[in-house]
């Protein structure tokens, strides 16, 4: 019984004095320094060494190691001082950076969970119109000046193998909407526009082709994750508001 108690005490003492976040006696092995118990990560130190001097630990001189460590300690000291001074309450750049960082943290956390194939399939089915190739048109836009009643040669505007989105920008929405319905070789009815009467001659209309799931999976995954991040951010904000004590002056709203 005495031996068991002794073993238990040894294990408890070991855990107490080496558990992360509680050590006051030594720098944890994953860190290179503690600044007021705030760790400076060893892997970040190595990265900084590589970034600043282009060397790994084995090839860094003592002066280089000292410089990088001093810089990182200085940064930590000033960050801690910034918290003491509550700089976030007055510096708009710090506030913006903090908001951005918290939003990024929410997103980064969301991304560690991988959706299942079934979830991705369901998302793909629910948003199928998004996952198609961009259509391509080649057409001629014959423009007759208003009032000529067909006399005289029209001006001809060529749309040569453009994606749908580009053709829409160049032609305008109403003309493009008429054009996209035309088959190869098709000719539109006259379309009256402020700049004249348009007759569209479709030479080739390659309509969007839906991607199968395999081809679209990359984008489906990206969209699924972005939507999940949006939900999380909304949820986090709702949670923060709910637990916060927000008082609003009577005359504001």
């Amino acid at each position, binding site marked *: 019984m005495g031996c068991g108690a002794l*073993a238990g005490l040894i294990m408890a003492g*070991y855990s107490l004095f080496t558990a992360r976040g509680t050590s006051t006696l030594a720098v944890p092995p994953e860190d290179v320094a503690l600044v007021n118990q705030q760790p400076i990560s060893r892997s970040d130190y190595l990265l900084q060494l590589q970034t600043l001097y282009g060397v*790994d630990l084995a090839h860094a001189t003592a002066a280089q190691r000292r410089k990088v460590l001093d810089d990182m300690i200085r940064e930590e000291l000033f960050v801690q001082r910034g918290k003491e001074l509550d700089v976030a309450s007055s510096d708009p750049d710090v506030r913006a950076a903090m908001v951005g960082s918290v939003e990024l943290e929410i997103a980064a956390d969301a*991304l560690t969970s991988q959706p299942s194939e079934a979830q991705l399939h369901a998302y793909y089915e629910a948003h199928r119109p998004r996952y198609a190739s961009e259509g391509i048109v080649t057409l001629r836009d014959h423009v007759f000046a208003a009032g000529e009643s067909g006399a005289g040669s029209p001006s001809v505007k060529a749309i040569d193998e453009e994606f749908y989105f580009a053709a829409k920008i160049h032609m305008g929405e109403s003309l493009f909407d008429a054009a996209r319905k035309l088959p190869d070789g098709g000719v539109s009815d006259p379309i009256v526009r402020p700049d004249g009467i348009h007759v569209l001659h479709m030479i080739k209309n390659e309509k969007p082709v839906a991607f199968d799931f395999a081809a679209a999976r990359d984008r489906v995954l990206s969209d699924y994750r972005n939507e999940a*991040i949006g939900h999380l951010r909304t949820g986090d904000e709702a949670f923060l508001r709910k637990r916060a004590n927000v008082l609003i002056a009577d005359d504001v709203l």
Partner: protein
Amino acid sequence: MVRITFILAAWAFIVAAVLARSSYIEARLLRADPASIPGDAMLSGFGRERGAVLFEGHCAICHGDAGRGDSRRGIPDLTDDDWLYGSGSVSSIEQIIKYGIRSYHPRGWNIASMPAYATVQASARDGRIPSLSPGNIRDLAEFLVREQGLHADDAAAARGAALFSGAAGCYDCHAPDAKGDSAIGAPNLTDRITLYGDGSRESMAMSIAYGRHGMCPAWVRRLAPAGIREAAIYVYSLSHTAGAE
């Protein structure tokens, strides 16, 4: 009663000894220069064994059980010696696992994101990147085919070269010689190692037209520092013979 007490005490000592040994080796693993670990049989073996478990639980779902990836999904093969990000060293891999790629973590590899040239806004980050026409995209694909040493239409490849080093802005990430930049994760387009698709004109055109935004999560808040290092050692081992360095 005495015998049971003795057995329990002995068992407690054994467990304590095992835990203490693991903690000791783990501490040595963390304090070691990452570059030296592959040459240390004890540390690398310890790291590989533990890293394999972590890989199976967190990474295999994308990278596959053997780490061979999937070009249909843009998942890189971790068993070859082609590294898109960094140098493929233990510390480079460790940084990727820790902070991710396009992971939204501020310290992640977030710069490289392939624009979607067949959309009205090719890049959400840089409005100067123009949209391209279908012909432009075909020409760029032909240029890349030529750069890979394959038979290509010379005229189309020449037009593609002009786009690559000019209006399309490809040189900015992929370097003027199209050999990529591992400092930002822009792939070498002159080799035949493809992250997406089968290297055909069609798959290259698909990447140019619709962009690519593969992602590796940041595990810094989900895995302990020791776990991240162990996973890095395991991933490193997938592309290196055991213990040799």
